[in-house]
């Protein structure tokens, strides 16, 4: 993390109608950094973003943006006076405004005249290659186009923190990759910090500088993508961050790439899935079931006796088996 954090969250507690959605979360995000919030639905990701944006009032805790306390110190600063932009899961484009006027909206709120705001908005849309959609209303745009317009609106705000609330959840797989690439490129250009909420481990690991794992309103672990994948703090964290096998009575974590077919250990092949570039083998050995990933099409059939090797493993710090995990 570089220098002074742009966003600092300390001991944040949020309650809705008696249920606690966040139970004391502390985080800091630096300029130019992307922090992914990874958690299952209901873990508090959106709640955390909404608290930072000022859409809800936490019960306690403080939020500081660029060194200024916006929540927790007297009356909370309203969303429009926080230097941040939000990209929403459901796009949240205004049905009565054209794409151009949508992107011009934050510029107008800064006091730009209509013509000037539109010129600037068009320039932003050109950079995102959506300028040909300028005259269209949301109803005339596809999901991917809508979300690009949503991103353009956020860029127009020129914030110091971007909040991405599962922006790709409603996008098709092929649109998703292009959108993410665009998003990261623009965010890096701007030098702003970003918090990216998602329940998709691949997305979080591939995109973020650091990943924060959330479970039931608590932070489970914060670290680089490599750290949270290779060294999860418990079984829940392990399963949240990717495919995970546990052997030896729940004590050892094995990722699919950490085991190989061939070698001294014996097992029976339980299932096999062809995944295109690689194949996944589920083997049943005396030490437990292990998922093994090998490149190429399947080389064995179900029921075959196979040999395998353990190349790497991670001893889980948590208790042996955790029954409440997914």
């Amino acid at each position, binding site marked *: 993390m570089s220098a002074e954090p742009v966003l600092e969250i300390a001991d944040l507690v949020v309650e*809705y109608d008696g249920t606690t*959605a966040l139970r004391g979360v502390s985080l800091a995000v630096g300029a130019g950094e992307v922090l992914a919030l990874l958690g299952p*639905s*209901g873990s508090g990701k*959106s*709640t955390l973003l*909404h608290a930072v*944006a*000022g*859409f*809800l*009032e936490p019960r306690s805790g403080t939020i500081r943006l660029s060194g200024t306390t916006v929540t927790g110190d007297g*009356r*909370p600063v*309203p*969303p*429009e006076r*926080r230097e*941040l*932009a*939000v990209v*929403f899961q*459901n796009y*949240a*484009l*205004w*049905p*009565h405004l054209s794409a151009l006027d949508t992107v011009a*909206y*934050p510029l107008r*709120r*800064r006091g730009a005249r209509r013509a000037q705001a539109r010129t600037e908005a068009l320039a932003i849309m050109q950079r995102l290659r959506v300028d040909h959609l300028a005259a269209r209303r949301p109803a005339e745009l596809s999901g991917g186009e809508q979300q690009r317009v949503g991103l353009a*609106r956020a860029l*127009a*705000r020129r914030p110091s923190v971007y*909040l991405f609330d599962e922006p790709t959840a409603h996008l098709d797989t092929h649109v998703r990759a292009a959108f993410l690439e665009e998003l990261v490129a623009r965010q890096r250009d701007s030098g702003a910090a970003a918090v990216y909420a998602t329940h998709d481990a691949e997305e979080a690991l591939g995109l973020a500088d650091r990943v924060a794992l959330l479970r039931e309103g608590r932070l489970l672990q914060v670290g680089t993508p490599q750290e949270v994948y290779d060294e999860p703090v418990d079984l829940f964290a392990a399963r949240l961050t990717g495919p995970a096998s546990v052997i030896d009575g729940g004590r050892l974590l094995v990722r699919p790439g950490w085991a190989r077919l061939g070698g001294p250990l014996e097992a029976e092949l339980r299932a096999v899935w062809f995944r295109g570039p690689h194949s996944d083998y589920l083997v049943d050995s005396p030490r437990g079931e292990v998922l093994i990933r090998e490149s190429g099409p399947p080389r064995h059939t179900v029921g075959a006796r196979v040999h395998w090797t353990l190349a790497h493993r991670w001893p889980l710090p948590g208790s042996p088996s955790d029954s409440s995990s997914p």
Partner: protein
Amino acid sequence: MPARGTPTVVRAGVPVAVALLLAVLVALPLLRLVQVLWQESDGDLAGILGSPGLSTAVRHTVVLAVAVTVTAVPIGITLALVLRRPDLPGRAFWRVAVLLPVVVPDFVLGYSWTQAYARAGFTDTLLGLHWDGLLGPVGVWLVLVVNAAPLAYLVVAVGLAARSEPDLERAARASGAGSFTVLFTITLRLLLPAVAAASVLVFVLTLGTFAIPQVLGAPAGFGTVTTRIYADLSIGGDPASFLEAVTLALLLVLVAVVCVAPGDALLGPHLRSARPADAQGTQTVPGRQAVRRGQAVGLGGYLLLTMVVPLAALALSSVTRALGVPPTPGNWTLDHFRQVLTVRTVEALGRSVGLAVAAASLLVLLGGLVAVGERRRAGRATATLITLTLVLPGSTLAVALLITYGRWLSGTLTLILLAYLAKLWAFAHRPIAGALDRLPPDELRAARASGAGLLTAVRTVALRPLAPALLGAWLICFVTALHEVTMSSLLYGPGSETLAVVVLNSQELGRIGPTAALSVVLTLLVAAPAFVLWMVVGRLRVAHDGPHAEVARVG
């Protein structure tokens, strides 16, 4: 399999039956109206239209409708915006309280204002304060606004729940817009179709309103089209006034169609695209508690002055010995109730309830029929026609039915029932059609795919979610029929007075105490079942929407 689907006879028969009934109830009578005017006027249409009284009445009616619309709709919008905040103190109470004018018969509302604020009224007796303008155009306007505001509120609130996702407003706040900018650039813009619908509704209802202008306007010589038709038919009786009533009835529906048609054509397509409503309050961004408290106080003050004081004054004058004596317990008596609760009144009461139950039950059936038929192309035209009947003023309908079927049915309850069916069909149809629209098609398909026939699928899967709409439609028709006086005052005969007609006649005779007592009886009669059904509908709705509302929360 045609045997398990809808029989072809039903499929083709429903639209035909609906069209026939519409012809009998509406089209034929309207044509007869035109025919009578043509025959009786001997070609001297210009002479009738040129009479000064007639043009004054039309002018008053149009100006009044415009004035009420431009005042009541902003009040309705304000109420909807304030009441949507979940952090408003006492929100659940206010949401019911602002609907009070809907269950108080408009006649009673107008009369209660005279008991509160007119000369020798409640404030005059207590504080020596009274308002002479109450009897006259300004008073008529003000009480009509109070009467129409909840309706505008309901339409706008439904639009607000259906159209405004909190994220749209949050996105604007996060784009740098303050709460007022968001209100004008986003919220109100999204509400435009609902606001327009509310305006059309209020405008049309004011055009056809009778009771309040009759109670507050007529004594001061301020006449509208509806009060003039009433005067022509009940006091007049000579051919000239009959002809004037027919002319006015036609002019009224003409004005309504001319004023509403362009608006409806512009709005029609937008109004249908409303998304499923989540009636839960949405808190976009937390607000200031002091502001909420101020809003609650404002609501309280508004309701106190417009409803609580007038209704209290009405209740007091129903138990106070005589006009002008202070309404203290020492002067209380039940004489007025004893005086009015005669056999004649009780019979009228029975007739009113019977008529309302019959009308509401038939209307829900008819409304449901049209709503189901509407899902097929052939039924769509009939649904549009039904919606058009909303524009028909009650006075026009009553005069038309009277001259068409009066020969056989004059002065019977059947004629009044026919009038209610024609007038309220759209009221029953809209909520049922709306609920059917919101029913996810996949739920019915899933039932069919699980082996249920169409009727079984509707009974097992659709009926429960539709129940609130069916009950709501029944309730609207029942309450409206119970306090309806515009049409019944023109159509009743000896032995077919409804309670509302008895109250109106009593007021015209100037019997203050007895009229107040009758008004109290009528109000309780309407309010009690309305309250009970409100609770039932509310419970059903919660049972059905509960889980969805929870899921809709931020996750």
